[in-house]
């Protein structure tokens, strides 16, 4: 190969390293696995009792739970020194992994109405199909279970770099800023209870069936059935689990015709139905193609088989060697 051609090739691979050439090819959205489990939260049913928050904190403050710390004697309650109250979290923190928040507008009289209405919304980890935190973590401390799709955290791998927090489009992972030996905390869909044959505590203890647990495919079908009902009609809402025989008949509310979590960033295993549009409830409008896919496409285009870096290195070796021979007898740096 002539020197000029060689240098050209080198420059081209260098350019490839520095840009995202060839990124236009969209990666296929995988969607949840058939065995993936998740939660369907129906905001129109939620009465804001926060029993799910209490259950979450209690059931996760045991060995294996998402809030467990070696030697803990009681759940990690929140203390707000300004208001001097205990465990009245106002947002997700490293001690509160599941929260019920209130939406209020105008007079706040009508349930599920966007104007002059109110509603409750439940926030916790979405267990994304293409989780940004899992893609971001350099040491595989965040992993997504191949079967259940649950995104779990391993403190023994974690270096505390907090890139998962930067990456998450829902701002879910929380860091223990007040600890000398901190961990990342997030909802792990009661993974430890699953192993005991139980399921997510927030669903088990929800008294009105606002949160139900089940396979994502079943949850999606259930959500679609609810959207197909006529507002004002009665519908048999399953309690606790989507496959439960226990149902409660209630009046169907006026839903937003959108199941949040089906298409957002490649799909999530937490699905939400509501009367108020999701972005008003703190669930951001997101594109179908995940940022995770974008980032991975750039990275894998540049580093596929280490070809581009390899070619660049060969060119650099050649150029540096030539340059060195040209200055024979001179001092190097």
């Amino acid at each position, binding site marked *: 190969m002539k020197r000029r051609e060689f240098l050209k090739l080198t420059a081209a691979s*260098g350019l490839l390293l520095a*840009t995202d050439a060839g990124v236009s090819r969209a990666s296929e959205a995988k969607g949840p696995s058939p065995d993936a489990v998740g939660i369907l939260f129906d905001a129109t049913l939620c009465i804001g009792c926060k029993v799910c928050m209490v259950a979450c904190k209690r059931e996760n403050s045991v060995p294996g739970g998402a809030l467990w710390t070696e030697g803990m004697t009681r759940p990690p309650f929140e203390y707000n020194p300004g208001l001097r109250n205990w465990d009245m979290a106002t947002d997700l923190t490293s001690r509160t992994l599941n929260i019920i928040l209130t939406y209020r507008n105008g007079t706040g009289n009508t349930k599920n109405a966007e104007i002059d209405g109110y509603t409750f919304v439940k926030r916790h980890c979405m267990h994304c199909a293409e989780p940004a935190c899992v893609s971001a973590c350099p*040491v595989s401390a965040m992993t997504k279970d191949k079967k259940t799709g649950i995104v779990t955290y391993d403190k023994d791998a*974690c270096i505390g770099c*907090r890139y998962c927090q930067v990456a998450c489009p829902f701002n879910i992972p929380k860091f223990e*800023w007040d600890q000398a030996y901190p961990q990342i905390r997030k909802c792990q869909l009661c993974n430890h209870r699953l192993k005991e044959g139980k399921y997510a505590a927030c669903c088990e203890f929800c008294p009105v069936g606002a949160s139900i647990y089940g396979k994502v495919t079943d949850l999606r079908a259930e959500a679609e059935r609810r959207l197909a009902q006529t507002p004002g009609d009665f519908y048999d809402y399953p309690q606790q689990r989507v496959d439960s025989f226990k149902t409660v008949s209630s009046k169907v509310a006026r839903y937003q015709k959108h199941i949040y979590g089906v298409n957002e960033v490649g799909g999530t295993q937490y699905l939400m139905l509501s009367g108020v549009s999701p972005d008003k409830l703190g669930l951001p409008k997101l594109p179908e193609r995940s940022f995770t896919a974008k*980032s991975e496409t750039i990275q894998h285009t540049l580093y596929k088989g280490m070809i581009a870096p390899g070619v660049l290195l060969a060119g650099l070796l050649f150029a540096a060697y030539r340059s060195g021979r040209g200055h024979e007898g001179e*001092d190097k*740096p």
Partner: protein
Amino acid sequence: MSHVHTPVGGPLFTRVFAIALVVAGIGAWFLTQRFMYGLGAVSNMSDGYPWGIWITYDVLVGTAIGCGGYAMALLVYIFNKGEYHPLVRSAVMTSLFGYALAAASIFVDIGRYWNMFNIFKPSLMNFNSVLLEVALCIAAYVGILFLEFFPTFIEARGGPGAAKGYNKIMFILVAIGVLLPTMHQSSLGTLMVISGDKLSPLWQSGLLPFYNVTTAILMGFGIVIFESYLSAVAFKRPFETPLLSKVAGVIPGLLIVYLVVRWADLLLRGALGSAFAGTAGLMFWIENLLFVAALAMLMPAARRTSAKSLCRASFVLLLGCAVLKFNMYIVGFQPAPGWRYFPSVPEIMVTLAIVAVEIMAYLIFVKKLPVLAAPEHT
């Protein structure tokens, strides 16, 4: 022509050194607080802004300032411009400090530092993670920089020419020493792609890797000029004006390429709508005005002939690139309504302490080791 490097000599404990020592001491005190009571005790970082100035300044800007060695190696070895040789050694040394201290800052910043070496465990490595590439690549580069600088130690003991044998393999180190910064400086840009909509469209782009590596090279050239000026003044040595004005001649072309790509990208994505609101909008204009100003100050060849104007222009360039990097990681990062970040006093003091350590190390090294090119008497 042979290039001889000599130690500058003179007393070590000067006033500048003493001030740097005090600043380093204050930073060290805050660091003990950080390790005893956690990151929240000293920093304003939060779950909304998990990365503050320790990452943005100490790592992102710090390594870009440390790109002097990278930029000069590109010029001297790859583009075959041997005439710039006298500038290489001090550039490599500044790079070594910049990168070593960036690595040290990471240790301070990460919450579970005792697990730090997990990034080297093959069973845990996640090859989808941009941060893994950055971490491994920076770690490797610190090693390469040390090996590139090693002849200085050999010469310090054996005199000029003692490192001749070692220099035979130098071309390998130089080639790897250009490859690695190209990789991790572009990845430091890719790092923010996954944050998606949380980063303002003024910065969020598939071209972030290109922007970050280009500005790292620009900062590399900028720091070579700026540092040469400062050391000429501080040690009362002649300023290598002709040589440095030639180095400065490389900058305008690179700046134009950067600005054309950046603005074409902004216009094609229709991102400018966000440029007229809030702090982010203001900082966007400051960033771009600094780049344009640096270009105006360096474009006419006549302006590249005086030491003072070169120093001034390189400072504006460094500032512009630094503002871009702050915008990319902090100012343009808007995770959700309600989150705010401005660094705390202890956070700033720790960062200043790191700069102070860098200055002290620089003073010790140039005074005791043959780093700076001996003034030529003609």
